[in-house]
Each structure stands twice: as structure tokens, then as C-alpha cells.
């Protein structure tokens, strides 16, 4: 199955995502320059992290008006899996494909640290191989990741089960607070009503190689394996 990884000027996790997908059975990643289009030839689209267009104006704001994201919008309507990581999540939110906004971190500083995520919804294309309640370790690295939504909308987001990941406390070490950015309700990732568009702030592609994981795990792999399963139609 073919997965497009869209490269915007300023994307910097594009190659990391490609590498993670290359190591996943059943998917073939391809880097697509944002102006080139042709995304409808792919079975899924990933918007990787980075600083598209320098994060100028607002993170993801300029990318959200690009040709590629116009195509992504049509693909999303057709039910094609769309997955945004970090800046990709910010872009999906700016494009209105996911609700809410990603505001400046509550600490007012960029934060790069390993966090624990709890899987809240395992019916999305990137969590199908997880169980609800699974704890995954992976890093966050962002300056604008504080998820915010007015309370009425938040209630319906929660009621519909559209919270996909929450920051969670797993061990003693996380004692200083497990929510790295002040996100509302500890939300780290969400999906749209149909469940085919998913965005998350943490970086699963950085937790695929066990050599790079301080605990020698590779929890990010399950996200990409889930995507492969979803595309292959397997469970």
C-alpha cells in the first residue's frame, strides 16, 4: 500500500517518518513535494512534523492553504486515512479538518521530552493494533501543542470518543507532571467524526528504533503497524 509523506518547505521530520514507514511491513512510503500534487494516487497521507513555512504566522497556518492540503481535504472526505504528526497535526487543525486549536505551551517554552501516552480510542487507522488503555512511550518536541477547545465542543468530542491519545503518568519518574504543554484534559491526539483523520503532537517515528529509546522499547512502531493493517484491511 502506498503512503504519501508530504514535504513542505521547513518540514523536518519527513525523512524520519519515511524511515519509520520503510521499516513497516505492508507499506511503501513516498516523499511528495507540497506543490506537486497527485496525492489521490495514494492509499494514505501523512503530514510530518517540522516548521512548515518557518511556522510563521501560526504553526501550520500557511501549509493549511497549500495545494497539497487542498487535495488532502478531498481525500479526507472520501475516507482516506490522513495522519498528522506534530506540525502535521497543527496543519490539520489550521485547515479545519480537525477541531480546536494548538496554542503556545503553558510553560511558554518549547519542550522536548519523553512522555507516556494512553490510547483512548483504538478504532482509528493508527491505533487499530493497540488496546484501549495501552501506555506508549515516545517524545514530544513542540512549542505550540496545547490543545484547546471551547467546553461545549470538548464535551461532544469526548462523548463521541474522538480523543485518541492522552498524556498519562506511568512511572515515578514522571512525577513532575505528565502533561508537557498544559493541553486541555491532557489531550495529545484526536480524530475527526469519521475517524479517518487523526492528529497527534508526540512523535511515534522517533520511538521506532529501540536503540534510540531510553528504555529500549519501540512503542512508536505499533502506530505505523496499525496504519499498515488498516490499509491492508487486516485486523
Amino acid at each position, binding site marked *: 500500500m502506498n503512503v504519501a509523506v508530504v514535504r513542505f*518547505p*521547513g518540514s*523536518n*521530520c519527513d*525523512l*524520519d517518518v519515511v*524511515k*519509520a514507514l520503510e521499516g513497516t511491513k505492508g507499506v511503501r512510503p513516498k516523499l511528495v*513535494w507540497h506543490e506537486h500534487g497527485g496525492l489521490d494516487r495514494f492509499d494514505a497521507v501523512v503530514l510530518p*512534523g*517540522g*516548521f512548515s*513555512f*518557518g*511556522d*510563521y504566522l501560526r504553526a501550520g497556518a500557511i501549509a493549511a492553504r497549500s495545494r497539497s492540503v487542498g487535495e488532502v481535504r478531498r481525500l479526507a472526505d472520501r475516507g482516506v486515512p490522513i495522519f498528522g504528526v506534530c506540525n502535521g497535526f497543527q496543519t490539520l487543525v489550521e485547515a479545519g479538518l480537525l477541531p480546536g486549536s494548538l496554542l503556545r505551551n503553558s510553560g511558554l*517554552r*518549547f*519542550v*522536548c*521530552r519523553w512522555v507516556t501516552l494512553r490510547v483512548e480510542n483504538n478504532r482509528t487507522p493508527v491505533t487499530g493494533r493497540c488496546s484501549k488503555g495501552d501506555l506508549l512511550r515516545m*517524545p514530544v*518536541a513542540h*512549542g505550540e501543542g496545547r490543545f484547546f477547545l471551547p467546553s461545549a465542543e470538548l464535551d461532544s468530542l469526548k462523548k463521541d470518543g474522538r480523543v485518541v491519545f492522552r498524556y498519562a503518568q506511568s512511572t*515515578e519518574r514522571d512525577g*513532575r507532571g505528565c502533561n508537557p504543554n498544559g493541553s486541555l484534559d491532557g489531550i495529545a491526539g484526536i480524530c475527526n467524526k469519521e475517524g479517518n483523520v487523526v492528529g497527534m503532537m508526540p*512523535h511515534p*517515528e*522517533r520511538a*521506532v*528504533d529501540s*536503540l*534510540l529509546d*531510553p528504555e529500549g522499547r519501540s512503542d512508536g512502531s505499533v502506530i505505523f503497524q496499525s496504519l499498515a493493517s488498516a490499509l491492508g484491511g487486516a485486523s
Partner: protein
Amino acid sequence: MIDAEWSEHCSYKSSKALLKTLPTSGSRVLLGPGYDAGVLDAGDGCVVSLHIESHNHPSAVDPYGGAATGIGGVLRDILSIGTRPIALIDVLRFGNIGESQRSQWLFRNVVRGIADYGNCVGVPTVAGEVEFDESFERNCLVDVACVGVGRRRDLVLAQAKNPGDIVVMAGGSTGRDGVRGATFASKSLARDADSERSSVQVPDPFMKKLLIDSILDALETGEVKGMKDLGGGGLSSALPEIASKGGTGVELDIRRLSLREPDVTPLEAMISESQERMLLVLDRVRHKKALSILRKYGVPATIIGHVTDDGDITVKDGADVVARLPADFLANPPLIPRDSRAPVRQSDWVEPESPPDLSKVLLSLLSSLNVGGRRWIYEQYDHEVGVRTVLKPGQADAALLKLPNGRLLAVKADGNSAASALDPYSGASGCVAEACRNVVSVGAEPVAMVDHLQFGDPGDARVYWGFEEAVRGVADYCRGVGIPVVGGKVSFYNEDQLTGRPIKPTPIALVAGLVDKDERFVGPALKGRGDRIVLIGKTSMELGGSAYHSTVFGVQNGVAPRPSPQEDRRTNSAVLRLIRAGLAESVHDCSKGGMAVALAETCMGRSIGAEVELQGAPATRMGPASLLFSESHGRYIVSVRKPNLSKAGGLLARARVPYAVVGTAGGRSLRISLRGRRLVDVDVAKIIEGKESSISRALGEEQ
């Protein structure tokens, strides 16, 4: 043009002769000093490049932009030899941020500038080092080093070899920003830094990211014949260099440059230090592909001239020739001999009596600014992007990065201004020794270093003496341990204009090491309860410039630690053999704060305490406090599983390395005794709390 190119910043006219004494060759060295970056052979056709830069004066005026553009500069150096930047290392010096508002402002904004720039260009900041000392109150130091990786066959040199080839300016437009920056960097900071209007450059990490991506793509075409970054001195410095190195000349037309303002004069265009610009030499016939790649990324690129065979730099303004000078003449300024005079020192220092409660002393050291944890800083840096960072900031003594050939690269930078102020020879050789130990601690063999020597006004004979001593220290040590110096930088005129005092001499060493494929690497943290703790290396009474002296007594006096390259060579190789043989569970070196702080740090990672008895520790005669806090070089704390103890001991004995089994890991506190007398008893939780909170506390922030 001569003024800019012959400035201290570009020409090294006060330092070149001395720098020639550094050892620069080695079996892995492909490119040494004199190029934009040092290049090492990492095996299998893979090369590693290293470079260090500072941006001290601009950062003192505009800490955010100065620090950011400093990163921009060092990234260009790595890029310009055809390698991909994969890691940044920053070394910073500030005044006391616990007391000075100004230093807080400098500190916060320098860190933010590094974060915003490094994070945006997608190059992880993986390691660093910080010191706080009053002498940096108005002249903070911002050193950034960069590591690159590439293929040997893709290396590009800063030279224009073939007459007829075209010269292209790629990247940002040329404006007045940074005009006279190089001459500015070569002067002491003006009394009111705010009035310096033209020295500030605006960082644009987004353009830099596009420049990196597009140039790395363009290199694949084979059309790029030479490349040079535009840094200090701008075109007036870059053009003579590529022509002089290639044995050619260059003719360019100023009017072809894309100018930001219409009325920039030819002179200003030549010496402009506008950021995010690269000079490319492209094949005279085949250059379309490279240019179209730059266009795809939206990177402006204009042909501004061509390579000639007359050996001259010819600058035209339309049809008029406005300057013509021999390239060699510009690129090789006359050297200035400097006077040096050793300062008179009092030698009647008597070690003061230590406070009775050494547990309290240890805790105050751990939570002091110069020993405390750096999480506040490194969490603002993306240290993961690129998926190469195996050992991350705060996790180990050096950062460890995955190379494309399966080897691991260790990097760490160190300095010690307090020791260097007391004895620049020992301080400078000591920072090389410390960086080597840090690299060895993770299991890597040191293979090369770059240095950065930062001093006051070289016209002051005492300052220049310190510089001479530092160079001698680095040269002797590197020769002794067999490590080549593959690049470096000198920064003079670092002084506080208000008080007229120079900064403390600040030599910095960045050491790179390699871990072979499938070889083991380790961290500093004690791993298993019951593991035995081995202290390697001898402790001497060397408390001069120590964290203990400055924290407890507020003094910096006495004998600065002096490393022995011969002993260190033996010790380092023995420690590496312990790691490779799988005998070492953890390795941590002793540096700031001495053995006691090092022991406390080994307890932090997994919250495992230790019971230590120092009776048998190799040491000269001294009191208990001196034994705990002396900062002698050449020492490690290694933990070994009980069944492996005799093997490990045998290995160390055969290597003729002094060592002692001093304790056992376990419990929830660190207890240190000497001949049965308890010196220290501290909860590991308290150690962690003290160490982690030091910067936030100084800044008045909640944890």
C-alpha cells in the same frame, strides 16, 4: 575590503603562528584546520565533519538574534564542505543569573535563540556545557559547534579551481545588516552596546533549512565544484579565499547581487554579513540542474560572476571596475607579533578548614548553578529530530549519535574558566582531558577535537600570555594522548567595557569519539543493587578553581588540576576495554565537584543509593573534604557486577591504572565514609531535587 579581511576575526593575525604548534594530523583526518570544518574518516566511505564558532559580541547586544545567527553560521560551515549537519552542541557563559537581571535577560534569550533556530532547521541540539561567572556579566560567551555527516566522495572544498566556472550567490538577499560585523567582533564591546546599529543580523532559520535541503540535493548533480559560506567579512573574505585556494581569480559584478535596499554601496555589498547566504562555484557548462533545484525550494540564486585565471579579485559595478586586488594578498594578511607577560601570583594559599557538615556541602554543590542540572535548557532544544540520538542530554556524559555506517559517534564539549584563570595551561589541557573522559565514559574512543580559545584584548601582555599558555596546554595534551586538532577558533577582545576587565580565559574543547559497530556503550547511572563501585584514578590535592571553593568559600585560588596525558592515555584505554569486555555496568567521570558529586550523580538515573568507604582510594595525603571535592583529572566511577569484579580488577592492574573497590550500590541514600567515619549521608531523592532545581530557582521560577 582589506580592513574586513585583515580583521582579527577573519585573519587570526595575532594567533596564527601559535596555532601552527597544534598537532593536526592523524590516521582519520581528511581535512584539518584551514578549511570550513575538520573532516574525519568514519569508515565505509562515511565522513564526519566538525566545527565550532562563537557569536559572543553579537549575542551581548542582541542575545536572541546573536545566538540564532551563531548557529546559522556554524551550520553553513558544515554544509559548505558538502556534509549534512546532524547535531549541534552549545557552550555558554553568563554572569550570575541568580543575582543579575542583565545576565538573566542574556541567558533566557540566548537559550531561546538557539532553540528557535536549531529546532526550526531540524538539527538536534544534543549536548552542551554552561558556566556562570561574574566575568561574563556583560560579555557572555555563545559558542556553538556542529557535527555533520556525509560521504567521502561528496566532499566539496572552498575553492575555485577552474577558470570559466560560474560563481553563484544562493540564499538570502544582501543588505546592510552586519556591515562591519567582522571588524566589530575584533573590537571590545562599545560602552553602550545599544548604539551599535549595524552589527545585528536577523536570523531566518526557515531560509537556512531550505538552503540546507536544496544544497544537499544540488550536490547530487555533480555540478557543484566549490562552495563557501558567507560569514564574517562577507564576500570580501569569501572570494579571496576560494580564489587563493584554487590558484585562480574571481570577477564579479555587484549589480547582479540581489540587494535588499537599492542604495547599498559596492563596498557595503562586499562586506555585508547578511545571513543565510552561500557562495557556489558551478560548472561553466553544466549548471542548470543545480540552479533548478535551488529554484524548486524557493532559494534565490543569482550568477554574480565567474572564475578567472589572473589571480585577482575584480569587483565591478556594472561596467566600472571598483576594486582589483590580488587574491593571495587579501587572503594572507601580515601577522602581528604580540608581547606576553606572566602575571605575578601569590603562592601562599592555605586551604581553609572545611565546614563540619559535608552532607550539606555536597547538597549545596549539587544545587549550585555550575554543577546543577541543565534540564531547563536542554528541554527547550529538540534533541531527537533526525532519529539519530542514542544517548540524549542529561542521560550520559556525552551525546551518542547513530551514523549511517552503523558506528556511533560520541561528542562532548567542555571548558573550565575558573581553572583557566588560575593556570591557563592546566585549564586548557584540562578541558581537553575532561571532554576526552566524557567521550570515553560512554564507550567511545576519542578520535579528534576542535578547540575554541576565548580571551580578552591580545594587546594586553598578560592576556596574551594566557593565550600562549592555553595553546601550549592544548598542544601538549593532544600530542600526549594522540588526538589531532582538526579545527578551531579564536575569539579575542572579550572584556567588560564597564569595568575594563577581561573575561576569565575560556578555552573550550569539543572531542569526538567513535564506538565501533555492535560494540557496547554505557551510561553513568548505577544499574543494579549489589553492584560494586570501583574508583579509578588517583586524587591529588587540586582544589584550585573547584566548585567546592567557589560554592563554600566564594574564592578561586590554589592549585588548579593539571592532567597527565601519559596517565590519561593508559586510564582511558583501560576504561574502554572494561566497557567493551562487558565488565562495566556504568561509567561516570569525576569533574566539577569532584568525586562526591560524581558519586551522587551516578545515584540519580535509577534512584539507586550507594554505600562507599574511601579508605583504599588512591590519593595523596589530604583531609576528607579535599578528598571528596578535589577536581583531579583522570578519574572515573565504574560499577561492576560482583561476579565480574576480579576480571575487571585484573584488567586494571595489568594496565597499571590505580584503582580501588570503594563501595556497593543499593539503598535509598548515598553514604560515604572514610576509615569508618561517616562523611556524607544524603537521600537520593534530595540529590535529585537539589540538582534539578538549580536553574529554575536562580530564575525565580517554580519547578
